[in-house]
């Protein structure tokens, strides 16, 4: 497998007036060429902080990367000075954000903003860069690209702006595109178009995508592999089928229960996960999900569960996978399904 990005035991903390928030507590994942990795979790689970710290975008201070490694094509990318970081930011890794309306400079034309990347990283002249910017806009299916390039962000609709953002992040043909909740701020129909565009570009450019989202429907549509995050840790990771059909963590089960489905049991009411995530000012000693978990055991409150390998591609962090643990029917059912 052709691994491009490898993250190992990443830890990020924020110093606040109230104390230190341990936002990311030992996250590891790999990204291989051409695949889409989805990082899923509820708000505040640390998924955005994880990718932003890789890009050197968290403000330091108050933020601090306290541990772990991240290597992009064999080179370390953590804690680099801006001049070093700018050798891969925008070049090898492109990034798009949640709210395209506020993510573009309101007083610069769209074309200039895209051309800026090319001028800085590729040393293109003004005209050349602008011409390439127009081509990029065309590639993201923006009609009348040469005219649109001379317009300002406030003259664009939300969906068009996100296309422009994608065009901008693609300027230097990056190996990885990080999309931080790219469709959350958009209408449902526009969402589908943007996701379609991303899939199309991924095929043509052979690029990897790290997709941050809380929307399982988006995951199912886009992802090859999935990492589920909870309270600053990856609690389950695997292929998209592993996660959806062979869920091995009570939290993933809970997420699925909370998701509407149009196949079976349409009359069944959705069941939310009760309670709220732990306060990361004082992270729990044991499993972070313990307080909300329907299967919680004595050990869960006291000891962090080890990572258990379920199959070649599938890992989970739960005491239930310990040989001594009692059998849980729901997990079993799934196992049976898998077997069958």
């Amino acid at each position, binding site marked *: 497998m052709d691994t491009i990005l490898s993250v190992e035991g990443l830890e990020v903390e924020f110093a606040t007036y109230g104390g230190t928030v341990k936002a990311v507590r030992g996250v590891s994942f790999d990204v291989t060429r051409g695949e889409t990795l989805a990082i899923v979790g509820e708000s505040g689970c640390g998924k955005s902080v994880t990718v932003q710290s890789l*890009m*050197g975008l968290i403000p330091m201070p108050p933020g601090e990367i306290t541990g772990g490694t991240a290597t992009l094509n064999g080179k370390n990318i953590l804690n680099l000075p801006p*001049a070093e970081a700018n*050798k891969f930011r925008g070049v090898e890794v492109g990034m798009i954000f949640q709210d395209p309306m*506020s*993510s573009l*400079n309101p*007083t*610069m034309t769209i074309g200039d903003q895209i051309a800026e990347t090319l001028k800085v990283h590729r040393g293109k002249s003004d005209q050349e860069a602008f011409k390439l910017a127009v081509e990029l806009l065309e590639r993201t299916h923006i009609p009348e690209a040469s005219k649109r390039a001379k317009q300002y962000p406030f003259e664009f609709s939300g969906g068009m702006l996100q296309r422009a953002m994608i065009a901008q992040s693609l300027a230097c043909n990056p190996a990885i595109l990080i999309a931080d909740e790219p469709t959350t701020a958009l209408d449902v129909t526009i969402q589908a178009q943007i996701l379609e565009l991303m899939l199309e570009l991924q095929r043509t450019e052979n690029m990897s995508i790290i997709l941050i989202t809380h929307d399982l429907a988006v995951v199912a549509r886009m992802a090859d592999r999935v990492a589920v995050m909870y309270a600053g840790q990856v609690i389950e990771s695997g292929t998209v089928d592993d996660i959806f059909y062979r869920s091995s963590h009570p939290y993933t089960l809970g997420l699925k229960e909370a998701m509407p489905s149009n196949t079976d049991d349409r009359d069944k009411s959705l069941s939310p996960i009760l309670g709220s995530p732990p306060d990361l000012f004082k992270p729990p000693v044991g499993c972070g999900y313990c307080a909300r978990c329907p299967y919680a055991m004595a050990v869960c409150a006291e000891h962090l569960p080890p990572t258990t390998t379920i199959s070649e591609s599938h890992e989970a962090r739960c005491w239930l996978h310990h040989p001594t643990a009692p059998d849980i029917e729901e997990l079993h059912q799934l196992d049976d399904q898998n077997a069958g």
Partner: protein
Amino acid sequence: MLAYTLKRLFAGVVTVWFIATATFIAMHQVPGDPLMNDKAVSAEIRANLEAKYGLDKPVTEQYFIFLGNMLRGDFGISFTQQNRRVNDIIRDHFPISATLGLLAIFFAATGGVLWGALTAIYRNRLPDIVIMFLVILGISVPSFVFAALGQLFLVNLNSLFGQSIIPVAGWGTFWHMLMPSMVLGLGTMALLTRLMRSSMLEVVNEDYIKTARAKGLSPTRIFFKHQLRNAILPVITVLGPQIAAITTGGFVVELVFAIPGLGRYFVQAVQQLDYTVIMGTTVFYGAFLVMMVIIVDILYGFIDPRVRLS
């Protein structure tokens, strides 16, 4: 943009008419006959004025004569200086006040943007704390105290060198203008520094700055290309009203530094109850300020595309 400019100009004309009317009403409230003042008017001027303003005629007729004269740009003849036209007085003294004011605005704007940006970069560190303390001081100390201190400083400076390095008072060369315009701009500079600082801190947290960093731009480029330009916009919007504040604030500085500007002349005219000079100067200043606000607003449109294109 053209339609907008024309609309603003029309509104400006109406505003100037309102200022002229308010001036006329205010001056007609002054107790006593303007010509019966103890600052006696010569018979010659009295005859001229009665003819010109029809002071014996009803108030409404006087008002229309006054408006007609204003419309032609004729502000009349001074009450206290024989045969000196108010237009000449304005022409002689206003350029001095305007130079002083523009220099002061220049100091205030460049200083405000510079210090404001600096404090934002060094937020909560020593340079920020020191500058913000000075800013609070600049806002709280009246301009005449700064004028007095500035003059004291020049006196000491000159005595230290045993010769006149920078003139303490008067007008003429750039060196005459330096201290008065800095003193005049100080309060506005403090205000603009504060505004620029909060504006910069707001922009730093904007998403598009994060985008710029994700694009791999250098901090310097982000600062100049993305941060500064957006942060200056709110500073420009208050520049119009601040020009007004500075121009009238010029009175005190002109008084302390013995500068022969229009402000000092106005104060003198008020003391002597020179009606035509008071009315003429007020209307002229009013029109000038209205004009400045319009110019700043239109300039703003050129800088902010959101305004220009809507």
